[in-house]
């Protein structure tokens, strides 16, 4: 597309400039945001209430448009122009857009939509406009589904708008599995829960009779691996999200297993297994069978995570004397240390885009979430607190969620998200305390 090509030229120019454009977006430029380039000013957008195409759609039309705004504004890249300021009224989805009215209120992007409800089925249409170029950005799209899934359709609309403007992959239509926490600090009750990425639609997957830790989605999002004390000591389990049926994966006596994660093939599981007080990295099929040992050091080797091509594994080890990050072949072999800064590094997670590794860093009594290139270069700390831990990547590799625990006897855990540049740090709402988030892939 010609406009895209022009936009890319402009982005390249911005990227090469070491100085951020303090004023954000030139009003006459194309509708485009570069996520990794430190956007200073959120892009002003207008999202008039979606048009209800029949009476049954009246409430949903408004709710869907609110979720679209919440997604876009929540990304930190957009600012909503309040509806009170709108000049034009959008009452007909197919009517010509009055660009002058939107320019007059300085809306750079315009999202319009229409919703119709037939029985249990909802159909959502949307269009995105580049106001200052007087033209649509991409074609109109239509999503259809069950009325129960209306929030997903709102996320799909927001994802399409986000992707067209940023050029990044979508991430709003995704879920997060996490550990819901209740009770006092010394006797914390933990249970697995799953929710939409924005905290809506919380569902519990286990009860709180056993400690559960570190859930991780399968590449298709239908299964979760986690660690549970169901038998009295930590063991890894696989849980089917739809049926919540679960089974233990590693039940060998005299060993314990934890820190599981799927390989991109959706079958192989990499995890830590400990015998005689020594933790090493192993793999096995999620269907069971033989285990393959990948590390054999007397060190604590844990926290394994595959590269998205499945060829390498990043993990943490204290073989050098304290926790550091290493990369090895997915078949094992000699690991290469990639973290060399001050302090300790743990919980490495390979970005789904393959370009960065996120980690937890401890230094001088503080915890940080950070990212580095896969060779350890360009280390950048995104957060700092008493206890930040356990980063997980959004499906587009541009946003990170993690847990933050406050100090003291009344300390509690919450989920936070932050973008790759360290901007837009915010709490993700959960009904109770929450820890160990893991982001799902984009839903199909």
């Amino acid at each position, binding site marked *: 597309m010609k406009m895209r090509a022009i936009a890319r030229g402009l982005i390249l120019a911005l990227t090469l400039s070491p100085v951020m454009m303090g004023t954000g977006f030139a009003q006459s430029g194309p509708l485009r945001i570069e996520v990794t380039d430190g956007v200073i000013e959120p892009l002003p957008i207008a999202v008039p209430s979606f048009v209800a195409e029949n009476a049954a759609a009246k409430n949903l039309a408004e709710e869907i448009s609110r979720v679209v705004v919440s997604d876009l504004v929540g990304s930190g890249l957009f600012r909503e122009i309040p509806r009170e300021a709108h000049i034009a009224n959008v009452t007909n989805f197919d009517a010509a857009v009055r660009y002058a009215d939107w320019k007059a209120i300085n809306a750079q992007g315009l999202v319009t939509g229409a919703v119709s409800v037939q029985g249990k089925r909802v159909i959502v249409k949307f269009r995105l406009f580049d106001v200052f170029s007087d033209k649509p950005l991409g074609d109109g799209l239509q999503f259809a589904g069950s009325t129960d899934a209306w929030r997903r359709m709102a996320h799909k609309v927001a994802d399409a708008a986000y992707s067209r403007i940023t050029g990044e992959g979508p991430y709003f239509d995704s879920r997060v599995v996490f550990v819901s926490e209740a009770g006092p600090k010394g006797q914390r009750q933990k249970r697995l829960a799953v929710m939409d990425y924005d905290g809506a639609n919380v569902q519990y997957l286990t009860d709180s009779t056993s400690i559960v*830790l570190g859930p991780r989605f399968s590449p298709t999002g239908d299964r979760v691996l986690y660690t549970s004390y169901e038998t009295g000591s930590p063991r890894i389990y696989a849980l089917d999200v739809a049926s919540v049926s679960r089974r233990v994966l590693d039940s060998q006596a005299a060993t314990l297993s934890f*820190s599981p994660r799927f390989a991109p093939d959706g079958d192989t599981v990499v995890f830590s297994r400990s015998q*005689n*007080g020594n933790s090493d990295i192993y793999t096995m099929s999620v269907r069971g069978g033989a285990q393959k040992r990948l590390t054999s050091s007397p060190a*604590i080797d844990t926290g394994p995570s595959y590269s998205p091509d499945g060829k390498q594994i990043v993990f943490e080890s204290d073989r050098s004397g304290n926790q550091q990050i290493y990369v090895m072949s997915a078949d094992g072999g000699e690991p290469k240390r990639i973290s060399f800064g001050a302090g300790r590094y*743990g*919980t490495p997670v390979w970005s789904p885009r393959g370009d960065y590794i996120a980690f937890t860093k401890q230094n001088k009594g503080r915890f940080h979430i950070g990212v580095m290139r896969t060779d350890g270069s360009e280390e950048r700390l995104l957060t700092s607190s008493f206890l930040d*831990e356990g980063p997980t990547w959004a499906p587009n590799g541009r946003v990170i969620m993690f847990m933050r*625990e406050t100090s003291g*006897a009344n300390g509690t855990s919450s989920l936070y998200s932050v973008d790759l540049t360290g901007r837009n740090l915010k709490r993700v709402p959960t009904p109770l305390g929450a820890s160990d988030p893991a982001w799902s892939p984009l839903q199909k």
Partner: protein
Amino acid sequence: MKNYTKLILVALSLTLAACSNSPLSGGFGGNQNGLDGPGVGDGSADDPTSVAYFMQTIGDRVLFDVDQSTLNDAGRTLLSQQATWLNSNPAYMVLVEGHADEQGTRAYNLALGDRRATAARAYLVSQGVDASRLSTVTFGKERPLEICSQEACYSQNRRAVIILSGGINS
């Protein structure tokens, strides 16, 4: 007789729970478990074969230095006393819990707690306790005994805890 014992044990458990901040109290699993059974004393601290005696006179907790699983002098001394007692009271089975303070990441602390429990177990074995009586479990940073966020609490949370249970009918 058995019911009578249970009543006493319930009372004892409540006492233990009530002083859970005392350095003499049990670990996460608690020594409330498996207190009845042959070969086990009447539950009073005056009975040198009782769990209460073990906890009050010897102590069930071994503490570790920051990020360490190597036993220090105090730890070895305590474990030696525990081993002597366990060798005199062979009906008890032992679960060694390993714990870490909150200053660490979750999986690492699980592995660290595992190392601590294993180190304590190995020392008991070296002092003559039959290995088949000893098992281990790690709780990482999941079950702190003291909940402040200062070294005074952290030092109590970096621990291995001996949990006793009656062995013959368990």
